[in-house]
């Protein structure tokens, strides 16, 4: 279903403007989608587990800035690792509060969203992090160059999608995430350690937001404290467009990635068609609601 929507959207756009299928534009779409796809995959873990995470945009900004700072002092590998670890740590904090203190995920992650953004501004003083001579050249190359004709940035979600799909579908852990989201009490009575499972989904989400933050820093050639704003909303919309249920227990990583493509292609199409940017927001919002409503109607009819 999401795949068909994406194909129809692409076909319609291609008919309306011949610029859509140009190699430059398609590459642009892939690169734009790559960072959001990484965030949406983490969000899929959380949503399938029955939760919700609003803090991913702020976490990505924090990870990007920390990665840049560490990189300037201790090299690329240390920087990248620091960025991802910081993201995972934010996720762990979210997960512990939500799973073990039973605070509502919406409220918890709304809090961390604001808190983490504040921390980013505190440690950067509000200025981009790129040092006096800029970030290391190899790191910047990672944000702009290609391997086998495809951007490094696009390889990241491609590899992650393969690995994480295996985790979700072929490991006991993945099945327990689905079970927990589908019915927490029933999963608990089947022996699933539901609190640990729920907390772990936020760790995945935070770590992947960290990866996205590092990718973003590579692309922007600096750690930007304002980066990643509204990423959480786009990511949640993409996961829902991909057919996941906010009730939990349903959702697939590759479909969430297709949801990301739908969001990005839609924005791209509206740009190419010279739609006024204010109207673009209206259109994107309407599409999200329409897609979710269509999905509800479809599942209702199936019952």
């Amino acid at each position, binding site marked *: 279903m999401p795949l068909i929507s994406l194909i129809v959207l692409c076909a319609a756009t291609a008919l309306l403007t011949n610029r859509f299928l140009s190699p430059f534009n398609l590459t642009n779409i892939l690169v734009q989608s790559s960072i959001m796809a990484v965030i949406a995959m983490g969000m899929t873990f959380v949503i399938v587990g029955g939760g919700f995470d609003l803090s991913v945009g702020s976490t990505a900004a924090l990870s990007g800035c920390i990665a840049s700072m560490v990189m300037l002092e201790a090299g690329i590998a240390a920087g990248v690792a620091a960025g991802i670890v910081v993201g995972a740590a934010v996720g762990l904090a979210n997960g512990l509060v939500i799973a073990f203190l039973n605070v509502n995920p919406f409220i918890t992650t709304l809090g961390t969203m604001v808190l983490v953004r504040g921390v980013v501004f505190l440690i950067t003083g509000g200025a981009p992090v790129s040092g006096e001579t800029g970030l290391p050249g190899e790191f910047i190359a990672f944000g702009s160059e290609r391997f086998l004709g495809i951007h490094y940035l696009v390889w990241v979600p491609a590899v992650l999608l393969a690995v994480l799909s295996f985790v979700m579908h072929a490991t*006991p852990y993945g*099945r*327990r995430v689905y079970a927990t989201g589908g019915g927490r*009490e*029933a*999963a*608990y009575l089947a*022996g699933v350690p539901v609190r640990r499972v729920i907390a772990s989904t936020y760790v995945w989400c935070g770590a992947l937001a960290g990866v996205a933050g590092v990718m973003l820093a590579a692309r922007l050639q600096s750690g930007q404290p304002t980066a990643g704003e509204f990423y959480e909303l786009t990511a949640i919309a993409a996961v829902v467009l991909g057919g996941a249920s906010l009730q939990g227990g349903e959702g697939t990583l590759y479909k969430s990635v297709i949801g990301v493509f739908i969001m990005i292609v839609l924005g791209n199409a509206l740009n190419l068609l010279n739609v006024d940017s204010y109207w673009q927001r209206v259109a994107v919002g309407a599409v999200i609601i329409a897609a979710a409503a269509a999905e509800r109607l479809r599942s209702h009819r199936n019952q």
Partner: protein
Amino acid sequence: MTRPAISAEGVGKRFGATVALDGVDFDVALGEIHAVVGENGAGKSTLIRILGGVHRPDRGVIRLDGKECHFASPRDAIAAGIVTIPQDLRLVPALSIAENIALGDLPVRRLGPLTMVDRARMRSEAHAVLAQLDFDPDPDRPVAVLSFAERQLVAIAKALRRRSRVFILDEPTAALEKREIERLFSVLARMKRQCTAVIYISHRLDEVVAIADRCTVLRDGRVAAVAARGTFAVNDLVGAMIGRLAQGAVAFSLPAGEPLLEAQPEGVATVCVREREVVGLAGLLGSGADRMIRSLFGAGSDPTMVATRGDKRRLASPADAIAVGIGMVPGERALGLIMNQSVRDNILLPNLDVLTRIGWLDRDAGDRLVAEVMELVDIRPRRPDLKASALSGGNQQKAILAKWLARRVAVLLLDEPTQGIDVAAKAQIHALIRDVVARGGGALIHSSDLGELARLCDRVLAVRQGRIAATLERPASLDEPTLSSAIGG
């Protein structure tokens, strides 16, 4: 009897390829209690949903007072005086008793341009209808603090206030204790005297025999039999429901072996389940018997100490209990299965560790295991990819058992394992439990159906106020009346 209050003539209804009702005639007169029985999937729910305006029939007519009528929605049916009291009652727990009774038709008073709820009248009206039911709670208390039986009376009061003439009660006694059932029956008798028509859906056939003026048996969407009061007994109904004669099977005791599970809850006796033994827990609603089952599974509010085959263990979570070979069938099916997931995933969930090969799941072994246990417990249809929510109640219950049979647990804890499921599925579940026991396992069963405990168990522990008050041994003291007095019913 008088002219029917409501009647269905030749009603048919299909859902996709499934024929739910196939030319059913049914009627109920004012002042009559008409029971509808049948196995799951026989068409009972569809019939009452058509009468209640939820579904529209594909063919046939519905007549109200002899006049053909078409309900477009449940609202229309309620306006015409037909009220369904569903199993879950559909009350708003946070609102008061008076508010729940008035909801949908609030008494109002006008204050200039403002319309306000007339709280005083709402309260006095609630009081008046509740008095008719011999129930006298403070109408300002929230419904959330009431017991299930009390909530049911509130739901009935709500319908009485609307002056409804046709009451449809769907499995009203499924969650009631004996005394509460008696109170409900006296309420129904009074409603009957007040010329209300009652349609009574139940799986408990002894109740149907006791209370119904007439009984319609549905089988495969058709009327298999209609009988008037005094002309049928439980066995006739069972025969008509499943199309053959049922045998009242009584289990044979096997020589019990070593203790499998021992625990010392508060009270005079130890809970001890031995090899080849079925132990019952009997208790009124609120006696704590259901909590005892949960706690023995490590799912209580505090960790439990139990001895399994003599080793002392601390169970802090169900995972701990499963690890030592205990499985539990919870009282609510929604807690036994993850409804939006497939039967396969549900059966595999407690067995994932067994099926893991260096970090990943062995799918083929899983599929073989699922196929094997689905065959063993006879889940129909045999489709492991079907969502659990698509199964009938009896098959859901079998799927929950299948999870634990796949693991070959030593001890099965069961809370109300046959509540709300049909006779045939009930017999199959009893047979499965006896099977587990015959192969050297043990079972501990809590049931509010004392007849079931008397037939199935080797020993029954009577629970009062969270304590074990007495132990009743087969065959000397294992019969329904003795059990009933032991639990204080």
